[in-house]
């Protein structure tokens, strides 16, 4: 069956501001691209701060893995990866394996379009541009809020965000709270803001062995490499839970009270299965175009 892309409604845009320092962040990114392949979301932009350049390269690798290998995506395709070029943070160990992996001919296993900082995007401009790409956008924040707050402070942007941002989901794990003033600024946006506390991710712990064979549909998979490199005995799914909720706010797995996300009673096992299914699925093929 063929499908005319013009006849399906535009999916909601998603902006993911992440430090990409934990394996659950890599899984969240995979889930986002799988949802995008199913036209349940559009990846408006990914911005990295709080981690070294390797984290941005990893996000680019994942983007290329799921969306193709275009060296320089046009303005009508995926935006580049935002990155805080002033930061001196180290590369998270989790990304090292995927970035170092090579093919038998010695070439990198995964195609990438970022080699140096100037291949990344200015984070404040990227976040602003990503939010305004679509009429409706969701923002998932799992990094210091510094750059998101700076983007809000740009001329004319607050009004744009107020009109376009349908939801901000803030992950309260890792270093999200490091810039308290910036986080306060983001939380004060006059749009629905939902905090995903660390207790949510802790309730959704998964053992590393659970991923054995989960990515077998690909001979090599950057997120599988990241999970293998980053997961200890088990892994809390902070970012993946937040991303899932962002994409599926009507899901019965979660409830929101006073802007805080909670896992519904007894929902953990089914929720875990659903989250992992989304993050590890083979992406849907692009829709065939009718003449």
């Amino acid at each position, binding site marked *: 069956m063929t499908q005319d892309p013009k006849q399906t409604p*535009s999916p909601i845009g998603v902006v993911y501001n992440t430090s990409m320092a934990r394996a659950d962040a890599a899984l969240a990114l995979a889930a986002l691209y799988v949802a995008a392949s199913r036209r349940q979301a559009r990846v408006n932009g990914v911005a990295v701060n709080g981690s070294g350049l390797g984290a941005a390269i990893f996000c680019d690798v994942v983007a290329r893995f799921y969306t193709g290998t275009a060296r*320089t995506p*046009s*303005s*009508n395709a995926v*935006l*580049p990866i*935002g*990155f805080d*070029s002033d930061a001196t943070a180290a590369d998270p160990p989790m990304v090292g394996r995927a970035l170092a992996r090579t093919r038998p001919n010695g070439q990198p296993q995964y195609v990438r379009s970022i080699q140096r*900082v*100037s*291949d*990344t*995007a*200015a984070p*404040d*401009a*990227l976040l*602003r*541009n990503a939010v*305004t*790409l*679509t*009429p409706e956008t969701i923002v998932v924040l799992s990094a210091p809020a510094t750059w998101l707050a700076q983007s809000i402070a*740009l*001329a*004319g942007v607050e009004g744009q965000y107020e009109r376009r941002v349908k939801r901000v989901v803030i992950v309260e794990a890792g270093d999200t709270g490091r810039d308290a003033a910036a986080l306060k600024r983001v939380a004060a946006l006059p749009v629905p803001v939902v905090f995903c506390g660390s207790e949510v991710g802790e309730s959704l712990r998964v053992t590393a062995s659970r991923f054995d064979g989960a990515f077998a549909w690909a001979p090599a998979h950057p997120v599988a490499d990241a999970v293998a490199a980053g997961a200890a005995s088990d892994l809390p799914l902070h970012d993946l839970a937040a991303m899932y909720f962002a994409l599926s706010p009507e899901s019965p797995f979660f409830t929101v009270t006073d802007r805080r996300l909670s896992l519904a009673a007894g929902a953990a096992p089914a929720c875990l299965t659903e989250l992992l299914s989304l993050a590890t699925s083979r992406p849907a093929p692009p829709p065939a175009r009718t003449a």
Partner: protein
Amino acid sequence: MIVTGKSLSRRMVLKGIGTTIALPFLDAMTPAFARAADAPVRLAWFYVPNGIDMRHWTPAAEGPLDTLTGILAPMNPVKDEILVLSNLTTHWGRPLQDGPGDHGRALGSYMTGAQVYKTAGADLKLGISADQIAADVLGKDTRLPSLEVGLEEARQAGNCDSGYSCAYTYNLSWRTETQPLPPISEPRALFERLFGADADEPPAARARRLEMRRSILDEVLGTTSRLQAALGGSDRRKLDEYLTSVREIERQVQRAETDGVVVEPGMEKPFGIPVEFPDYFRLMTDMMVLAFKADITRISTMIVGREGSVRAYPEIGVNDGHHPLTHHQGNMDMLAKVRQINELHATLFAEFLIKLKNTREGDSTLLDQSLIVYGSGLSDGNVHTHDQLPTVLAGRGGGFVAPGRHIIYQRETPVTNLFLTMLHRVGVRPDHVGDSTGELRGVSLS
């Protein structure tokens, strides 16, 4: 520099009946020991349409400019006077759910950093362009607050690109959100705006002068003689050179009006416009040089071609329209022609820069005292990309810029950051220019 006992006003003009000719910068206008850094800085923007073949534009490495190749090769004579700036973006040129119309958005959003309201009607809405933000502050110091020039007759109404008004594809300068400033494309009109009669010249007198082919210099002969007698030798020579330039341009304007009125069988030549594009470009930019030299204005824009321009360039063997050629879809023959056009534009721009460089102003040159952008709101015209734009900044801005380098910025950096930096240099300090996020780092070495 010769320092004379008396000082002339910077704003002194030669006046005749209904005629006003501004003077160039003379030594006698500089108080003793005045520094070149105090001289005014000029701002200009050159917009080239339909993007550029970026494969032959971007220098291979960041840092000091080596010998320029490809499309930039014509700029080698001035490579130490330019910065090549890579990765700048016009976000609001993107579709953003507004559908097709990239050409309509590209030019409109370039200097405003604003989203182009999609309409083919009169309900235009855009933003204030960078040059007009500057003109609002600096314009009071010169006879013309700003000068808008273009090499295609500017249409102001109608649908020029997928529902976008022609006003968006033909106007680079916007005085307000709703008021574009149409560029002057007719040489005679530009000449008279700069050097000829102001609006006060009686129409009958103007008609008589034109009919008699008298020079506007004749109208100011008396005051010219008196001024020359009061000047030192160096200034007399400068004034003489300047007036000779004005006369030469006036002759070219007259020649363009009287040259054959038929370009080819069945096609009339637009009145007063040189047949060959390079001549047209040179004539109009020569007038820009004189406008800067005489401090008639310090701010100018030049639309080398409107967005979506279908101009053919038979002078260089390109008989196809520019815009259709840019949709080459990888056709090597079409790509080669696009490159030829890109190189022609770059060559003519380099000639303009050389003229500025050869124009002394006090202890400096006009190019030293200028900040001139050459660029486009599209990079790849084939697929309409609005990022990784081709951008050159020429001139030193009165010692502010450290040129001769290629700087690669992070992607998504707004091109309006460059414009904001330029405005700050000339003492105009808006918080932002459209979607700018801050000053562009690295333009100066300080």
